[in-house]
């Protein structure tokens, strides 16, 4: 990934074709598409790639069985695009078979549910999924022994999971490799407008160095997810959303073999699903009126999710929850519907046409599963405005690492790392696994053992992928988000980054302080039972590792 400069890169004095604000899946997806079509792109993200809604999603590129009822278009788009994403990032994908238990008191009844599943089966070929099956109670409990003994059979259906944060990073990094200026921790200060009132870029501030700079661009795209309303306001072109908050609880390990459907007390569908090294359960969907920059998971939300899960998996509370994640859906505005019934569709606004603010665009709404399609649509419109005549290739051009299959056994032998660690690097970096591991001088060693995060991956992220802070490593390399929540790996990872990025000694303490505060925000809402004892160890580890230099921060 030699195209990504690790240090402050010069910003070309020529105006960019497009400035994309927001490094979630929408912004990163558009930046990549634009770069593939030869446009000069700048992408700025105020925190870490995917750190908003993308990271808080269920991490699935599913078709959306749920949307069949209200929004069959969204189901179709999601399924078709899921198929494309599987082709361009085969390494990042994993199958998640779902199990939908049938209870005697379910309002719909098995026959009606099966009609829905039969309809959904017709979409499965688009995304390489298998048709549903109907299981007896005994069969279902053999597959998933923890299921309630009240069930009367079950259905299976097929979906796909993905590491959403990695997907965002892969899109952004590919854009960078194709010449885009890409920078995290760079926040919007104000839009630039020329004398005619046309938006011509933005003033941005580097949140790590404090430096401000101007980025001039012919077109500017607001792709800030739930923040689009606030950002479009800054440009004088208001966009309304109906933001919906959703949470997931994340178990310290996998707690079921399959994803299992569950019904909330209000009848909403939720599920517990294995995802990478963990299981997740969720999600909620509630109208959100609060501060997007201070999202908190409330004990009520956790209780609501667990109450639902308990009906399908009665033993669920015996498993330890490692942390919880909150996010806000950038749902398009609509009045008079329940949250669940709102469209998951997206919209591209040309504010020149819509509000008389030329040069400014907004991409709003959407689903992770159909991000590529949305990006294509937005890019088509931007290219038309720019006079760029190139067609979309994002459905066929592999993302970084998706070029060829990887053989973990070979990687394991060649670099002297354990097979689980090699498989993990192969999953995350695909064909580039060797490149990642070669970044290490000594044989790669795990910095974390909750899942084998190798120091080489961390070094590679810092050196070649523009990783800037320890806190970001939670998303970028999944550091400190397992059972130990950083107690075992935080200080060591900070030292590894300090070594790679030449941080001064006092920076380490400040980085650890921010890292541990972020972990605490994720842990506190689920702090209960034996978890409190683990937190005593966590505190001994972190408070013990404080030094004098930089003690003001920590």
């Amino acid at each position, binding site marked *: 990934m030699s195209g990504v400069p690790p240090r402050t890169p010069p910003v070309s004095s020529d105006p960019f074709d497009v400035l994309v604000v927001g490094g979630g899946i929408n912004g990163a997806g558009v930046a990549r598409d634009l770069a593939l079509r030869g446009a000069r792109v700048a992408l700025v993200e105020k925190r870490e790639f995917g750190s908003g809604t993308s990271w808080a999603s269920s991490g699935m590129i599913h078709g959306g069985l749920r949307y069949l009822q209200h929004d069959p278009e969204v189901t179709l788009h999601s399924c078709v695009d899921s198929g494309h994403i599987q082709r361009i990032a085969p390494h990042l994908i994993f199958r998640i078979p779902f199990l939908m238990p049938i209870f005697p008191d379910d309002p719909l009844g098995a026959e009606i549910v099966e009609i829905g599943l039969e309809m959904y089966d017709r979409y499965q070929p688009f995304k390489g999924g298998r048709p549903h099956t109907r299981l007896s109670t005994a069969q279902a409990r053999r597959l998933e022994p923890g299921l309630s003994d009240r069930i009367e059979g079950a259905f299976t259906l097929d979906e796909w999971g993905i590491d959403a944060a990695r997907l965002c990073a892969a899109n952004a990094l590919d854009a960078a490799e194709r010449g885009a200026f890409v920078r995290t921790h760079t926040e919007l200060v104000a839009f630039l407008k020329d004398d005619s009132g046309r938006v011509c870029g933005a003033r941005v501030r580097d949140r790590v160095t404090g430096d401000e700079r101007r980025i001039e661009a012919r077109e500017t795209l607001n792709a800030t997810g739930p923040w689009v309303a606030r950002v479009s306001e800054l440009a004088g072109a208001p966009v309304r959303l109906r933001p919906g908050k959703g949470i997931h609880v994340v178990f310290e390990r996998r707690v079921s073999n399959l994803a299992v459907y569950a019904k909330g007390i209000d009848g909403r569908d939720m599920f517990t699903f294995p995802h990478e090294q963990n299981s997740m359960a969720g999600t909620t969907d509630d109208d959100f009126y609060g501060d997007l920059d201070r999202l908190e998971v409330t004990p009520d939300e956790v209780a609501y999710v667990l109450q639902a899960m308990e009906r399908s998996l009665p033993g669920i509370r015996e498993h330890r929850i490692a942390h919880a994640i909150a996010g806000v859906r950038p749902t398009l505005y609509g009045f008079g519907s329940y949250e669940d019934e709102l469209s998951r569709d997206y919209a591209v606004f040309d504010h020149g046409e819509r509000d008389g603010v030329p040069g400014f665009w907004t991409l709003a709404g959407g689903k992770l599963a159909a991000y590529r399609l949305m990006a294509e649509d937005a890019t088509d419109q931007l290219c038309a405005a720019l006079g760029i005549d190139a067609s979309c290739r994002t459905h066929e051009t592999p993302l970084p690492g998706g070029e060829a299959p990887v053989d973990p056994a070979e990687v394991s032998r060649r670099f002297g790392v354990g097979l689980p660690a090699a498989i993990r690097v192969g999953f995350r970096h695909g064909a580039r696994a060797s490149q990642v591991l070669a970044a290490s001088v000594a044989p790669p060693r795990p910095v974390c053992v909750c899942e084998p995060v190798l120091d080489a991956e961390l070094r590679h992220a810092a050196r070649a992928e523009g990783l800037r802070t320890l806190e970001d490593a939670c998303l970028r390399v999944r550091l400190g988000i397992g059972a130990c929540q950083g107690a075992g790996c935080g200080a060591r990872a900070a*030292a590894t980054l*300090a070594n790679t990025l030449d941080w001064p000694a006092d920076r380490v303490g400040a980085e650890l302080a921010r890292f541990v505060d972020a972990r605490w925000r994720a842990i506190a809402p689920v702090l209960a039972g034996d978890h*409190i004892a683990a937190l*005593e160890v966590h505190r*001994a580890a972190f408070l013990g590792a404080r030094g004098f230099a930089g003690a003001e921060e920590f």
Partner: protein
Amino acid sequence: MAAPPRVAIVGGGLAGAAAALEAVRQGAEVMLVSAASGATALGWGSLDVAGAVPGSRRLRWRAPLREAPLSGADRLAILIGTFATHPYAVLFGRDAARGDAAAAAEQVKQAVEDLDRALQPHGLGVEGSLDENRLLADPHGNVRVCDYAFTGAAGGNLAEVPEIAWVTLAGLPADPASVALGRLAAERAALGLSPAPARSVELRLPEGLALESVARLAAELDRPDALAALCQVAKEARAGSSAGRMWLFPPVLGLESPAPKLAALRESVGSPVAETLAAVPDATPGYRLQRALAAALDAAGVRRYAGRATNLAVREGRIGALGYTNEQGDAVEIDADAVVLATGRFLAGGLREEGGVVAESILGLPLYDGKGARVDGRPAQASVRRRYLDAHPLFGAGVVTDARLRPVNAPGGPPVAPNVFAAGDLLTGFDAARDRTGLGVALMTGVAAARNAVQGAKRGGLS
């Protein structure tokens, strides 16, 4: 002749062990029930009595060194003056904040001496002084200001070391040496110490030794052949080393006594040798302390029982027995004239959250935070704050006692029982992770609770 008083102790960490050893010294017959290891086994190698208190303006960590050095009595006085409900304030009285701190310091010195005497035969000594800070490095290159330390890290006092050889072991997970040494240099500067030359020495152990973690390697180095291999590679690496240089090893020198390892390495490299403190959760010094305490208890004739205490039983109108569930799951009762609860906090099981509310595990005693707010009977989440580094009531909560360390139902009220005492982390008023007085509190309250228990039992026997 009257039969010796019978004292039952719940908890085998430093608080329980110190209480048991003191009760034996006072002539009691002592039974100790322990279920699981707790905070003591997580120790990083120092025994901080008068700690260093972040958040206290008067006792900023760097203050004792940058400004006039403070004696142990001074720091005890500041601690007591700053934290009104700290166990030291209960133990020594708040007057100690004004003038009587010298007497408190004397008690501390006596208790540490007694502990050292009990542990020495089992390969672990306590070194240091309450009157002079010992500056010890951790594996990240941070410097901790300590009073006392156990054999292993105790010898690595940076205040006295002219030059450091920072040892890393190839393959053992650790910070890059350049980062740790950079940090150490910054720490020395922040403390106002003169810069000292430091260089790193990487040792490559022969194949076949477990290097996955500090604890795994420490277990290996208890074997003579593994130790010999380490000495050999150290000897080969010493070329050009000046004799005055201190070799600082990570805390891998055995899960049993580190003393013979230190001696063998000193012989090999021809220079002083010490370990750094440990970084939790790689707490080898905690394992060692826990092992040495168990050996000391056995040597002192304390009868140890494995099991989880469940209840106190009434005999003739007063608490007369301790009930526990043994490892076979049977309920057992031990007759006792006094009981000391040294059950720790959440880690050891003294406190727990069950049914969605926080409670004291054995008696359901009320729990208060350091400011007097109730913590029990509510969800844990109700007692935590927004930021990690805040003072969370949950992690400073425990039982409130009278001046004789007997738990009370409400501050200032009468004890729940005349012959039940509490010691260590179970007490309220301090947050060991923040103020680092955990082992000091365990030692001092353990000793005091045992004295009070034996005295009370003798008096009770006479009446």
